[in-house]
């Protein structure tokens, strides 16, 4: 099982991503610098979190134009599993690999805390190890996680089962009170039409060790391995 982590200037959760992928696949991922134009042969590509290009212009906007993103787009088309977390999600939307946009949190503040998430669709490469409707607990750490898309797109995402994760409370209740950043319909993570690209704001890679205070994120990475083997 081979995996790769893309590194842009300003990315800062690459080691967290590497640790999670290594734990799940048993092998250290290859780190690919953004200036490269080619990707190694790999089953999983992860675009980690951070502040690529300092979030200047718009979160993810400059990274989306990096040389390596052409190769990432080709792999996406070829059906390779691609996971974008936090800034990675922002980069994937800016690159047009996922619909919608991530706007400033409704509170206008950076938020770092654990949050409950409802797994809405377990029939994906990213969530096959979870039970439908399962409530999991991952941290978030972002300033711009407020998911926006027009209602037509949102209806389509919902209709096609492409809303994979939603912010909720411990009992799975999805309502405005549990919407921590103002996202449309409490959306925390979506997949593309083909189902091989997932973007999500929360950090499963920071919930993989009992010392983190929880291991709910492990199943997400296990799902990737399960789907690819």
């Amino acid at each position: 099982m081979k995996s790769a982590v893309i590194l842009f200037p300003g990315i800062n959760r690459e080691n967290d991503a590497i640790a999670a992928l290594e734990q799940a696949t048993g092998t250290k991922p290859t780190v690919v610098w953004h200036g490269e134009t080619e990707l190694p042969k790999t089953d999983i590509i992860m675009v980690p979190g951070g502040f690529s290009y300092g979030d200047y212009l718009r979160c993810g906007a400059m990274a989306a134009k990096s040389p390596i993103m052409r190769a990432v787009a080709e792999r996406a088309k070829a059906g390779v599993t691609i996971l974008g977390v936090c800034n990675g999600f922002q980069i994937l939307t800016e690159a047009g690999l996922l619909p919608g946009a991530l706007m400033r949190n409704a509170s206008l503040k950076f938020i770092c805390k654990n949050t409950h998430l409802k797994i809405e669709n377990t029939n994906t490469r990213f969530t096959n190890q979870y039970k439908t409707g399962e409530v999991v607990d991952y941290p978030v750490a972002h300033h711009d996680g407020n998911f926006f898309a027009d209602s037509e797109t949102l209806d389509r995402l919902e209709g096609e089962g492409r809303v994979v994760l939603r912010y909720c409370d411990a009992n799975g209740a999805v309502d405005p009170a549990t919407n921590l950043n103002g996202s449309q319909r409490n959306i925390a993570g979506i997949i593309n039409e083909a189902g091989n690209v997932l973007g999500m704001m929360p950090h499963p890679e920071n919930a993989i060790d009992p010392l983190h205070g929880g291991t709910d994120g492990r199943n997400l990475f296990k799902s990737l391995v399960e789907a690819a083997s």
Partner: protein
Amino acid sequence: MSANDFNTPITPELVKEHGLNEEEYKLVLEIMGREPNINELGIFSVMWSEHCSYKSSKKWLKTLPTKADWVIQGPGENAGVIDIGDGQAAVFKMESHNHPSFIEPYQGAATGVGGIMRDVFTMGARPVANLNALRFGEPDHPKTRHLLSGVVEGIGGYGNCMGVPTIGGETNFHASYNGNILVNAMTVGLADADNIFYSAAAGIGNPVVYVGSKTGRDGIHGATMASAEFDDDSDEKRPTVQVGDPFTEKLLLEACLELMATDMIVAIQDMGAAGLTSSSFEMASKGGVGVELWLDKVPMREEGMTPYELMLSESQERMLMVLKPGCEDAAKAIFDKWELDFAVIGILTDTKRMVLKWHGEVAGDLPIDPLAEASPEYDRPWEPTPKQDRIDPASISGKVSHIDALKTLIASPDLASRRWIWEQYDHLVMGNTIVRPGGDAGVVRVSGTNKGIAATTDCTPRYVMADPVEGGKQAVAEAYRNLVATGAKPLAITDNMNFGNPERPRIMGQFVGACQGIAEACIALDFPVVSGNVSLYNETNGVGIMPTPAIGGVGVISDLGHHATIGIKRDDSALIMIGAATGELGQSLYLKTIEGREEGAPPPVDLNAEKRAGMLVRELIELGLVRTCHDIADGGLLVAVAEMCLAGNIGADLHLPESGSEVAWLFGEDQGRYVIATRDPDKVLNAAGSANVAAVIIGQAGSDAVTIDGGAKVSLAELRDLNEGWMPSYMAEAVQ
């Protein structure tokens, strides 16, 4: 060219504007053997500013203990270095950015965080944890919300982008900070113990290299500003506050660490306060060499910059290095990859002089040692703070019930939850955060091991105000206790000495007393000072801050499988108080908040008892007998227990002692104490007995309320609302 730079006449007014008094200017003339030109005068001005020269504090800082077997580098370098075993070292320091943060809170705080991280990675360490110690004016002062909001956003804005978790800190409010807030930022980094980088330049003929951001006109004379009192026109000093760019610093961090993995660097120093002047003089002075700088080669942000501006700019995210000869191209390739400027701007010479060249012409020529080392050192007159009487518990009105007092205290600005602050800091990035903010100390795992680094910042300014010696001791003891409470072995501290105008004997006396107290505690607890920073002149219109020697403590947990947190974990545990209750109400929050009295002798610190209790608690945690531990600090025993209940969401019933003042027992802030929860109280009591440490069962965990003697109680839900509610609702009012 800017010929006018060289020829500006040096008038007495100009000398005064540069913050040099007559005596000091006489010394300048003596050292130069002639009248300095404007460039040279500017250099003297920043090098001899209080901020860079420590001229008022040096005499006393020298008295602090700085040695232990595990100290690799004490004060005097960019940061302190301690051995944490397994070939690794922890590198850390705390530094103030008080004056700039008051004038421009976001950028002031952000660049404070940027500066302290640079100090740590300059030494070859990757920053792994940030902390801070913040003091603001009283909550209803019109500026407090704006300052708090800007400072927190600035700290988060910089640290979050850098990808370094902010794992702890403390925040106080008091009227004495109305005109002078304190923003102290601390960074802890990790390095290989055999690959630490220092600042002493060496190798005549070696290239002097500038890397990082370009130099602009920002922050000129920042160090001089930070060495003067504020007045009503201080807001006009905004242009002297630097602007931070955390993205560039992140690139600089990665590029420097990449270069440090090679063998190309001889010496390296970050450009912080007083920028190129301070970094070049310090490197040359430490190495006993001379430097020739070609200022026209410095990467510049704008056109028309003068040598004067280049030497004094405090533009951020810059480093000065001495490379081994012939390494320039290979080193440049690394900085090119990270898209950062890299310029050879000079050469080391054997002249022991700093020669500044501007397009081939000499723009300044100064001797290095007299400037860097022979800066003025004052033995300022000081007077001790008169002692206050111990508060007699019989003088307490006792009008308020214990439970009502708890409810008031836990919702007060002093004790209300700081969640609103630390949820704006990424405290999880790097994936190694084991104990998050909100406990006694933050803990991060040493990547790839089962070891942890614990870190905390502590000071109780009202104690220091009342008795600088006891207050100084207490700040160190509390840092020690907070580390112990997680299961860490306390190793060393960094001190950030924030005081008023040292030219006033009473203020100088506070400084001297605090140093004495800190020194006593460091010696008794085997907890030396390895780095520090002094911020004086924290006064506005003659009103000074409470003396605030903030202590940053660092310790190591050898096995994270055995560490403790403050939340009660099981409802069948007994609660045991470790350490003796003596009922000290002087300067307590109960006295201030419930009785409206800010007075009395602060709780004395028995350093021997402190050490015995600390060693016992750490042993209990290491043995796995205790997983829940909290030190007793602000607010006293009942507040400590309530915090443990809230953190674990399990209540407790407290048994009052049979005799003595209940208020003093519940709310006294006696030092050297912890509350632990255990299912094996006999073992704990026995261990305490043989360690000669007072220990007594004070209650039982269980239920969903904090109860006193099975009677009066308050539900955890209500307590939580009170504790968590204050700061969000206070800050929400800012919007209106």
